[in-house]
């Protein structure tokens, strides 16, 4: 049981895909302008990662070693197409906001990386737990970047509209004169650089202790 818990938890902190292994940077920076987009992207990646890890883990003894990468890509692309169609049909606003980054989940290194490094060597249960952990880790880091960029860059937090709640929280004081650059491309790279430095500082401190 302890090892199963480990597979689940490692993706969230110890092997966090965004800040520690540094995989899947393109969507991370591309869609983190609004919290709602980050959550939509995180959920899509979690879904694709979960099902592709399960399918690849089930097929790991069937797929010949020489053509494993193309086979993985076909499995992943099928699930990405499902996500695309579902989002297009039910949440068109998120579909429009994610734009070209949605089909680009296919080439997100996290998913192919987990298939290659984990799912083709481990059991279905472990692979599913690994996928959930990694997916949550990715969603959390993406949301963190989006929170920083949106709060300081626009002075708002955009969530999904529910009932009488319009979905946008405005932060007084910041929304009048936000640091506009953070919502632009340059801001994304700067925020990522400082966050990565922060995590390097954390790791170096915990190693000393």
């Amino acid at each position, binding site marked *: 049981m302890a090892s199963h818990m480990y597979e689940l938890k490692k993706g969230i902190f110890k092997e966090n895909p965004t800040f520690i292994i540094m995989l899947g940077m393109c969507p991370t920076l*591309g869609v983190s302008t609004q919290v709602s987009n980050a959550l939509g992207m995180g959920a899509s990646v979690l879904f694709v990662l979960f099902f592709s890890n399960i399918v690849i883990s089930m097929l790991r003894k069937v797929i010949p070693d020489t053509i494993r990468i193309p086979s993985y890509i076909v499995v992943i*692309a099928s699930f990405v*197409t499902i996500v695309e169609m579902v989002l297009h049909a039910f949440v068109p606003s998120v579909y429009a906001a994610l734009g*070209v980054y949605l089909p680009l989940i296919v*080439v997100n290194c996290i998913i192919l990386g987990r298939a290659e490094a984990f799912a083709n060597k481990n059991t279905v249960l472990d692979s599913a737990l690994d996928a959930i952990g990694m997916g949550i880790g990715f969603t959390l880091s993406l949301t963190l970047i989006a929170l920083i960029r949106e709060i300081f860059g626009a002075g708002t937090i955009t969530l999904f509209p529910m009932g009488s709640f319009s979905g946008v929280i405005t932060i007084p004081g910041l929304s009048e004169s936000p640091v506009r650059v953070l919502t632009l491309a*340059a801001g994304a*790279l700067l925020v990522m650089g400082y966050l990565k430095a922060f995590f*390097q500082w954390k790791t170096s401190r915990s190693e000393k202790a």
Partner: protein
Amino acid sequence: MSYIGILVTYIFVQNFILVQFMGLCPFIGVSRNSESAIGMGMAVTFVTAIASVVCWAVYHFLLVPFDLDYLRTIAFILVIAALVQLVEMVIKKMSPALYKALGIYLPLITTNCAVLGIAIIAIDNNYNMLESFFAGLAAGLGFTMAIILMSNIREKLETTAVRSVFNGVPIAFISAGLMALAFMAFDKSLIVNLHLA
């Protein structure tokens, strides 16, 4: 849009790395020295230019006539994977010298977002075949320019004292961010003022 307009758009205004964040993994991973940066940039340019044309042909001659355009993502990634393999074999046969220079970068390109990205962007913008080719070429050139600039900055950083927590990847991201700030000077008004729209 004119062909020069497309070139300027994807090299400067919509630069794949500094504005659209496509292909960041090789940008950070392979930019340690300028030689490998040039190799990677050339390999990517080569593949994006061919892939955007081939994907355009597959989409318009195969997927649309059979009403299969929802299979776009799957079809494109397979086409790109096969194409990269083919390019690798052709270069190996035709020009061993070029293969030696680009060889190790070619397999990495299949999972480079820039290649799939430009193929999809070209379809979304309803480009014709030649426009797709120019868009692919320009995207690759923009990538090459950014990665070569970055590698020069990183070679300078090697000999500069950097605080240990910023060493390596963080300082690379921050330098890229400052480069992106400079690239904000190129926007849509550039295209309008040059009468390229």
